[in-house]
């Protein structure tokens, strides 16, 4: 009889994962080297999802699909990366990037475009790949400057329309 895995997590409370939803990171994730099993969680209406560590319920990494915020984002994978992900072509690949969200300034959230997490969606094998491209920043703001500026202004606890109209 198949029993889904259950782990107590800080962010989601009791968290149940089916085997087929586990993402395998054979090398862990830098900073979390021993954490080889993760699962993606989050809410439909929030572009920021969470990679929940199944090794330690206290650890969850906020991630986004890069194309939500950076439509132009393209990466070049080495053959060794494809081999690691047991991937023949790029068709089965998906990408996530880790975001850092300052708790007091969420509008300053930034994404690490230098080290995307690449997932083989068929085999559910993944790895954070550090790219050899100096142009890509570890802290790329995910929101455009105009929007950040708008949100930075202390708005009274009013309706969104009122906040937007105040100039």
């Amino acid at each position, binding site marked *: 009889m198949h029993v889904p895995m259950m782990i107590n997590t800080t962010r989601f409370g009791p968290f149940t994962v089916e085997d087929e939803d586990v993402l395998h990171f054979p090398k862990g994730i*830098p*900073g979390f080297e021993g954490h080889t099993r993760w699962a993606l969680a989050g809410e439909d209406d929030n572009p920021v999802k969470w990679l929940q560590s199944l090794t330690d319920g206290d650890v969850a990494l906020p991630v986004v699909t890069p194309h939500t915020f950076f439509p132009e984002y393209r990466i070049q994978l080495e053959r060794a990366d494809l081999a690691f992900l047991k991937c023949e072509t790029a068709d089965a690949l998906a990408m996530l990037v*880790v975001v850092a*969200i300052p*708790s007091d300034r969420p509008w300053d959230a930034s994404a690490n475009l230098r080290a995307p997490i690449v997932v083989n969606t068929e085999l559910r094998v993944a790895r954070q790949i*550090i790219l050899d491209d100096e142009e890509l920043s*570890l802290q790329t703001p995910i929101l455009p400057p105009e*929007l950040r500026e*708008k949100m930075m202004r202390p708005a009274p606890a009013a309706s969104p329309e009122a906040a937007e109209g105040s100039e």
Partner: protein
Amino acid sequence: MTVLALSRKKGESVFIGDDIEIVVVDVKGDQVRLGINAPRDLVILRSELVEAIRNANLAAAKAGAFPADILKKGGTAR
């Protein structure tokens, strides 16, 4: 993992396995310039970068959540 320390002069090299050669190209003061002959698909990174990625992940895991309504409030995402 063990640490092997050995001395090399400018122009000398060491092999790691059969197909990775590390050459001391130049030594100036406290700076050493290394040349690395290795298969093209081998990943070679400065350790500071690896450390920076590690720190970025650790910081991200500690960070706050992203309010879902932030995009609606502020307008549309780029």
